[in-house]
């Protein structure tokens, strides 16, 4: 059992001890702090030459993007999990977003879905007043979250479209679309294997299996701000972060050739290199104070 659930348990126990049997809400443990908003934006291209990103229809041969190999493509599906969010400041400030999982909800696990604008933003609550110049998060859901068992909210496998049943756990990152260069045959949430231009990349795998190759593809991402974001009375900053979709296919670990690479990725081992690319494709854009 990881520490946070233990802490939660101790906290609950302590709360119980204090409140005893009279169930009045008069001693509510108000933690002083403010809200820090995190906003994700999916974009195409490097920061100095970026274009806006939008999803295409399944079957569309309108290829809005071109990869580093000159192959045209579009994207029909893009979702990823952000969890274990941590803020840090120049004076030792540190905020860890609390996390918990129950059969009907999940706190601290955020599913960013390109098809749902409301999912692109989330609030960190009760952030202690202070200055912050760094955010870090896990791209994916680690073993602690998986081993909680049945889960709701952003983790609900009935609605998330992000659960692997055969190698049970949450897929960290899914991107699907079509490329003029692809020979098809891929299948995923939006792409069927009859789609002759389909490309599907499901980047998952969270297990550390003793004595085998390391196939935990969850990546920790750290982004530094170029300015301090201040939380305090009347100060509710927003950190605007970006994912460069093109960099997922062309990053530090691998370059995906839609004509020759595996364009139907569903196994941890097949997605390992791309998961590193995906983590590196996130960047800080600006703070909105």
């Amino acid at each position, binding site marked *: 059992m990881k520490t946070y659930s233990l802490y939660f348990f101790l906290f609950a126990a302590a709360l119980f001890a204090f409140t005893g049997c009279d169930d009045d809400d008069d001693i509510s443990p108000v933690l002083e702090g403010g809200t820090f908003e995190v906003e994700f934006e999916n974009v195409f291209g490097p920061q100095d030459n970026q274009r806006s990103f939008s999803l295409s229809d399944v079957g569309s041969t309108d290829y809005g993007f071109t990869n580093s190999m000159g192959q045209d493509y579009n994207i029909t599906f893009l979702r990823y999990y952000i969890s274990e969010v941590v803020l840090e400041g120049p004076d030792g400030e540190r905020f860890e977003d609390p996390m918990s999982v129950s*059969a009907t909800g999940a706190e601290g696990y955020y599913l960013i879905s390109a098809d749902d604008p409301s999912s692109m933003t989330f609030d960190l609550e009760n952030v202690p007043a202070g200055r912050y110049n760094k955010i870090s998060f896990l791209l994916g859901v680690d073993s602690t979250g998986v081993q909680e*068992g*049945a889960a709701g909210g952003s983790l*609900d496998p*009935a609605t998330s479209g992000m659960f692997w*049943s*055969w190698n049970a756990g949450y897929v960290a990152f899914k991107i699907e679309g079509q490329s003029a260069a692809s020979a098809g045959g891929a299948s995923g949430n939006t792409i069927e294997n009859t789609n002759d231009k389909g490309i599907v990349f499901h980047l998952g795998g969270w297990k550390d299996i003793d004595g*085998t190759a390391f196939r935990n593809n969850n990546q920790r991402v750290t982004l530094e701000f170029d300015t301090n974001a201040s939380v305090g009375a009347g100060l509710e900053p927003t950190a605007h972060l970006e994912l460069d979709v093109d960099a997922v296919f062309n990053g530090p670990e691998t370059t995906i050739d839609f004509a020759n690479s595996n364009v139907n990725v569903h196994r941890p081992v097949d997605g390992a290199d791309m998961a590193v690319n995906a983590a590196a494709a996130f960047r800080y854009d600006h703070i909105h104070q």
Partner: protein
Amino acid sequence: MRPLVFALCFMLFAGCQPGETQSDTSFTFVQPEHFPPATYDFERNPVTEAGFKLGKRLFEDVRLSSDNSVSCSTCHQQAVAFSDPQHRLSLGVEERVGTRNAPGLFNLAFTSEFMLDGGITHLDFVPINAITSEVEMDETLENVVAKLRANAGYREAFQDAFGEDTITSGLMLQALSQYQNMLVSDRSKYDDVVTGRNDAAFSAAELRGEAFFKNNCASCHAGVLFTDQSYRNNGLAGDGAQDAGRSLISEVGTDIGKFRVPSLRNVSRTAPYMHDGRFETLDEVLLHYRDGVVSSSTLDPGLEGGIAMTSDEMADVIAFLETLTDWEFVQDPRF
């Protein structure tokens, strides 16, 4: 006394709440004293009578499949310790043939990795695999939840079990786990002998069989659960080509053809045997260990050359294996 009530912790907390009724312990998970501690986290999902009954109802409901034809109990039948006696490979919707033989279901609360390749590490997630597999129930979780929500009886049953008026996949999975966690098989003759219950004693043949088993089989089929829960290749012919087993999950070649060592409890009821149900009788299984073990790079070193045994020894081993049948379990009216 056997009962070591797991709900203890829960009760401590609930103790102050007014109007708490004493629940019948026959719907409480009871940790058998001679078993290792349960691995399931009962603090998160304690078994209650209403939750167990809801889980049983779900387990037996064909609504969980796309064409309302297959339930969990189609492939997992109580009379044969929740295995499937009819089909070598399991049969799902539209008679679609699966890839493996349906194993018996019992003592799941003490298991931490499920399926013969260990691909699932939490009991709550096992039904997702069955529901969404094209060759089993071929349904989506979303649809199952919608079907349940549309049913007033289920809405009421979820309300009773969880105090929630909205049915979610998480609650459904927890109810199924409550039912499956209660499938504890600890009342066989073997259990009576090791715990000194009912003045039980092994016959001479059973004793000889036990001794042979301890020397030759218990390195893998270990302890009171009769499995060390590891993944091993027991030398079945043509494994690798047919079913890569554990390597599907670990993604390493050294695991090709390895499967989770199955429990041998209730084994006389759970034919056919092995991951693909290739053997119909325990005799065939023993003949395999004696004469049929195929050498390969992943064969368990302990089985190199097979296990020598006389036909008397084979009969003794089978007599011993039969003491593992838990008749009370397969006839328990609660299940």
